[in-house]
């Protein structure tokens, strides 16, 4: 039976609401250490959401997302330290560099099949890291990186303390969630899913698959570039080791663990991957061992992730049966 599902109000929205309220007041309840942990969770949540466009929605293996993150962070660091441009004004510049870079490198390799694309993205990530270490063009500061990046200033208020960063980061996250939610429920979002499901059929249905793959890459990269800017000003220093392969693995893993293609899933993944190891700090050495084993166990028991995406909803009007154009009612 067809039902107008759009009218129903799923219970999970209540849960989302409670989570949002908790997040809004979290810094009031937490000390600065835990607020900072949540800041990291927020940064990775946005990174995860940006990568989710590529991995989750388009099904493209990208294990080199840290390269785009690095591009944004270094763009902000260089322009800020050399020309004293305020950090927040650099957000568009970082997005542009990271996006442009993604366009240039993805253009020739975007047609490669999954696993080949995977190794190329790993390779690009490594090339970027090595280039940063080798102080390419003499502007990246080599292995030590770049110091002295200024704090962001918003409406004359200098953002300095963890709780101030908390609101900056989580408002950024909220905006991201809002925009990406709309995006994935649009023509653009559907097109990414079509090419993930079956590229030949998508192209045969009139979808320019190469364009959409590139668009996903560029948009995801640009967003990661903006996160890089926030990160640079939060740390006040950027160095190549902050953008190594394991950063990419963490972003990739949190998506799959949380629920590939699902915004609540990615947020959940960020909490688990970034937050949970902090909880187990007491275990010291065994922490990562347990973490690795947990990833395996998790995949075995819930391979689709903790919060897999829900089907999109469309307002299907009730139709008058007498008006049917077809002569045979659909058989089952």
């Amino acid at each position: 039976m067809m039902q107008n599902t759009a009218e129903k109000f799923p219970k999970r929205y209540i849960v989302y609401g409670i989570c949002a309220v908790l997040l809004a007041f979290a810094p009031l309840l937490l000390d600065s250490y835990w607020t900072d942990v949540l800041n990291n969770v927020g940064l990775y949540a946005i990174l995860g959401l940006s990568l989710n466009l590529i991995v989750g929605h388009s099904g493209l293996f990208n294990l080199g997302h840290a390269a785009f993150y690095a591009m944004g962070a270094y763009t902000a660091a260089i322009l800020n330290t050399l020309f004293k441009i305020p950090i927040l004004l650099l957000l568009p510049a970082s997005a542009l560099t990271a996006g442009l870079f993604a366009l240039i490198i993805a253009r020739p390799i975007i047609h490669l099949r999954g696993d080949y694309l995977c190794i190329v993205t790993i390779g690009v990530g490594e090339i970027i890291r090595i280039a940063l270490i080798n102080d390419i063009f003499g502007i990246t500061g080599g292995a030590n990186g770049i110091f002295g990046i200024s704090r962001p200033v918003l409406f004359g208020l200098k953002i300095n303390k963890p709780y101030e960063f908390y609101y900056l980061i989580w408002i950024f996250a909220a905006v991201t969630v809002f925009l990406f939610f709309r995006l994935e429920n649009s023509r653009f979002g559907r097109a990414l899913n079509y090419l993930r499901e079956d590229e030949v059929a998508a192209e045969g249905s009139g979808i320019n698959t190469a364009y959409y793959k590139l668009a996903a890459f560029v948009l995801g990269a640009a967003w990661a570039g903006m996160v890089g800017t926030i990160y640079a000003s939060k740390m006040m220093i950027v160095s190549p080791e902050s953008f190594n392969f394991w950063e990419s693995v963490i972003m990739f893993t949190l998506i799959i663990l949380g629920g590939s293609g699902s915004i609540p899933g990615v947020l959940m993944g960020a909490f688990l991957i970034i937050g949970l190891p902090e909880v187990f700090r007491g275990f010291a050495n065994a922490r990562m061992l347990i973490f690795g084993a947990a990833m395996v166990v998790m995949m075995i028991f819930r391979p689709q992730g903790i919060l897999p995406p829900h089907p999109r909803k469309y307002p299907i009007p009730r139709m008058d049966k007498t008006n049917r154009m077809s002569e045979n009612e659909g058989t089952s």
Partner: protein
Amino acid sequence: MSLLRLENLTKKFGGLTAVNNVSFESGQGSIVGLIGPNGAGKTTVFNLITGNYQPNEGNIIFDGQPIAGLLTHKIVSMGIARTFQTIRLFKNLSALENVLAGCHCRMKSGIFGGMFRTPAQKREEREALEQALAELDFVGLGEQADVLSSNLSYGNQRLLEIARALATRPRLLILDEPAGGMNEQETDSLIRLIRRTQDRGITVLLIEHDMGLVMEVCEKLVVIEYGGKIAEGTPDEIKENPRVIEAYLGTEEEDE
């Protein structure tokens, strides 16, 4: 007036000539059948028309314009839609979303429109939804809009592919073995569906092994064997053609 014209089309894979110097035309509004033994190169001809393969030689003229060498999605937007021999639906998406894929090429909104829900984007979404539902109704799947496409029966999956193709608003619809896996009743209603498609002014080109369907629905048949065209004509002419009988139908000792 011909809508589609193939001129001396040749396609080679390595040393193998899959399509050899094939020419034929599809008249505006007609239903043309492409028949021949398995492996004769029929599907390859389709893949050449839709740009999945590039021909080594020859031209493909659609509505007066050469289309060989264009990308598939471009050809679709020019007005050629297709279904696949092995069903290629988006398995994890609903029937409705499968049809919306077909609407895609007639829509315009992009990243910005999607993020900010401009009035134009909203209107476009609503229209696409209406059209997709209408196409589902047209093939008889209106009740199954919410159903995951992989949960549909085999025959209904074939119909859903046709609905998806129709949603691109084609002028030429290419069907690759549409009756494959359908029982008699389903095939009968498929015949009616093809006729109703023709009534909408859409030209149909199809490959089919079910001779009953082919003979009943097609106005013209093109017979291909070993990549080359061996005959062309009305179903009655083809039935009598000795070369076709020898190559394809077999000597009818006792059947039918």
